[in-house]
């Protein structure tokens, strides 16, 4: 009875029921959010077949350790963001429920057309969440660019269907491997799918929408898009990049060049910016590019940890900055000088999160960075390692500049109130960052086998 489909079906059912009465909608959102996390502990790792038709004729969900870690992260973060914002943004409760169902669906599904459908659902939910920014032109841009991305993804997928005759991810990978197709004929569909998903994943040069959305974000849309959605899309993209695309040859070179350009340009633009939200969003872009680089090189487990560390840190950073911007009506760093002089706990949380993103010792970001740079060096990607180190130095400089400005008071007194739920969230996340920075044994125990797609294919088709 306990099956992974419940993670998607129950939020959907709650969403359909929540429009019948506006009053119960927020309560339903919190209830379902909590129920999902509890449910996750009882669901076994298996392939869930939907409708009774075996793959590849029906649709299936794939639940393994990779999906489990991703689901815990995304459901937990979503619950935190929802709790902090449910009072202020009551009208969006039904939309948030649908977004939860779509995010779970993105991480679980094993069928590529189903991925397209859930991508659209999650996309439309994101467009609606960003309308709270009150910047309709930016939302319009996001909608147009997002729809073009999904259409390109569908175009690539249909070319693959025309070639192999199946839409199921595991069946498709098996067909590609057993028929020994020349990689040259796969370049066009894979590149189209990569662009389509890369638009949502904020990879350069497709991230024109990010600036408009996150620059004017608030406590709901900022953390939701930058932390929850970013984590989901990165993890889903990672599974596809590692198993399906398996870049090689010329396509690999093109993709790696694009990603490296994304890392460098992201850090450079963050360095030159004077607004707190802009700094954070450019840092998000370059971290997303680094994550995909790791997935391409097969360093799965450290990429997953990087996503987790980034999602937690960005949650704290965005919440602090957005709350402060909301209260002071400006996100110019010079206007926010001395923010932490009156809010010591919040300041410590922000500092810890920022230092973790930079990769200083004592924090989990350092452990993750050290490990993935070592593995990249072992794999022979010395150019990438050098470029990441250079960009880390730049990152360090601008984060330290930001921190100094925020700690030391300027001429004006900046007064922002962070109420108790915020402080509780900050305290927990800070503890987690410091704890995993000092005690790394749980991080070392998992290895690249958490992504079990190749093993499942072995079992189903050659077992």
């Amino acid at each position, binding site marked *: *009875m306990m*099956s992974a*489909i419940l993670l998607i*079906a129950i939020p*959907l*059912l709650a*969403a*359909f*029921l929540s*429009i*019948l009465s506006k009053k119960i909608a927020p309560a339903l959102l919190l209830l379902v959010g909590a129920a999902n996390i509890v449910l996750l502990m009882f669901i076994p790792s298996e392939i*869930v*077949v*939907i*409708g*009774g*038709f075996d793959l*590849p*004729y*029906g*649709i299936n969900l794939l639940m393994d350790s990779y999906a489990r870690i991703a689901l815990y992260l995304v459901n937990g973060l979503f619950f935190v963001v929802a709790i902090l914002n449910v009072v202020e943004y009551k*009208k*969006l409760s*039904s*939309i948030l429920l*649908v977004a939860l*169902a*779509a995010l779970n*669906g993105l991480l679980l599904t094993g069928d590529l*057309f*189903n991925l397209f*459908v*859930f991508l*659209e*659902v999650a996309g*439309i*939910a994101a*467009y*609606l969440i960003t*309308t709270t920014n009150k910047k309709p032109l930016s939302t319009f841009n996001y909608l147009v660019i997002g729809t073009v991305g999904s259409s390109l993804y569908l175009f690539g997928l249909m*070319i693959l*269907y*025309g*070639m*192999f*005759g*199946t*839409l*199921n991810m595991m069946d498709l990978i098996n067909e590609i491997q057993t*028929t020994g*197709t020349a990689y040259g*004929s796969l*370049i*066009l569909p894979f590149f189209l799918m990569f662009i389509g998903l890369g638009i949502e994943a904020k990879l350069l040069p497709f991230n024109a929408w990010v600036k408009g959305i996150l620059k004017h974000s608030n406590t709901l849309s900022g953390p939701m898009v930058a932390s929850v959605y970013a984590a989901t899309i990165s993890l889903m993209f990672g599974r596809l990049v590692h198993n399906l695309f398996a870049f090689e040859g010329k396509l690999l070179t093109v993709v790696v060049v694009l990603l490296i350009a994304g890392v460098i340009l992201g850090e450079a633009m963050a360095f030159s910016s004077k607004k707190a939200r802009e700094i954070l969003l450019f840092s998000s872009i370059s971290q997303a590019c680094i994550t995909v680089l790791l997935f391409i090189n097969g360093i799965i487990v450290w990429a997953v940890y990087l996503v987790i560390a980034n999602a937690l840190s960005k949650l704290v950073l965005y919440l602090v900055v957005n709350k402060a911007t909301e209260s002071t009506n400006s996100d110019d760093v010079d206007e926010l000088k001395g923010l932490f002089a009156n809010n010591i706990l919040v300041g410590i949380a922000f500092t810890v999160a920022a230092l973790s993103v930079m990769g200083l010792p004592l924090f989990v970001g350092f452990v993750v960075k050290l490990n993935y740079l070592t593995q990249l060096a072992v794999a022979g990607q010395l150019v990438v390692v050098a470029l990441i180190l250079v960009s880390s130095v730049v990152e360090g400089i601008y984060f330290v500049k930001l921190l100094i400005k925020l700690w030391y008071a300027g001429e004006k007194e900046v007064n922002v109130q962070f109420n108790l739920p915020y402080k509780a969230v900050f305290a927990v996340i800070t503890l987690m960052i410091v704890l995993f920075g000092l005690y790394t044994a749980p991080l070392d125990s998992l290895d690249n086998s958490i992504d079990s797609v190749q093993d499942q294919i072995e079992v189903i088709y050659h077992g």
Partner: protein
Amino acid sequence: MKKLLAFALTIGLGVLIIFALDANTSFDDFGYADLSERVSSRYITKDSTADIIFGVTQDPESGAANIVTSIVVDYRSFDTLGEVTVLFISALGVSLLLGSAVTQKRLSLDFKPNFMLRVASRALFGIIIMTGVYIILHGHLTPGGGFPGGTMIASAMLLLYLADDQFRAKIKSFKILEGVAGSLYVVIGLVGLVLGTYFLQNFLPNGTVGDLLSSGIIPIVYILIGLKVGSEISGVIDNFLTEEVEQ
């Protein structure tokens, strides 16, 4: 200058794509697709060694005579659930963006429809609704189904809106219909999970291929989808054609 660049880019992209597809040996040529290599052969033969004959075969794997319907509502029903969710969230978004004021009245336009239009449209309304309902009910036997049928019902509402500039439908009851129809779809899926072993499993008997009462839950699901789509699109039409009451 920018237009020239965009023109060159799109023409170049189009030519590139056409060449890549022509050079691709695995991509089937137009019209020469081999169905036995694709998953669709299972959807046609329905996993039985004998041919499926219209009006004769009892209880095949998926009972709809319209093979596309059996794919949309039976084999890949989860995609249809996602699609229904897309329409749901779009309609919700439109009402969030445009319908937030408490009191609304019809948008005042310069064109005022005349009396004959208003009366004649009521006669047409019945015919369009009947066509829509027919298409929804016969979704498993003829082309069509819940989505076109629901849209036809909504277009009947649009006719009334356009022909009479004071007409407003009861939006509250549409919202209730939409919510109930959607939840029933998910509940049918969950019943399949509880009674059978799979979500959205077809747990009613399939009957004879070609009968009106056949193919298990497929007609029921299509009726729910038709009602949902019709009420959602009517809600969207109402949101676009109303505005806030000037205080």
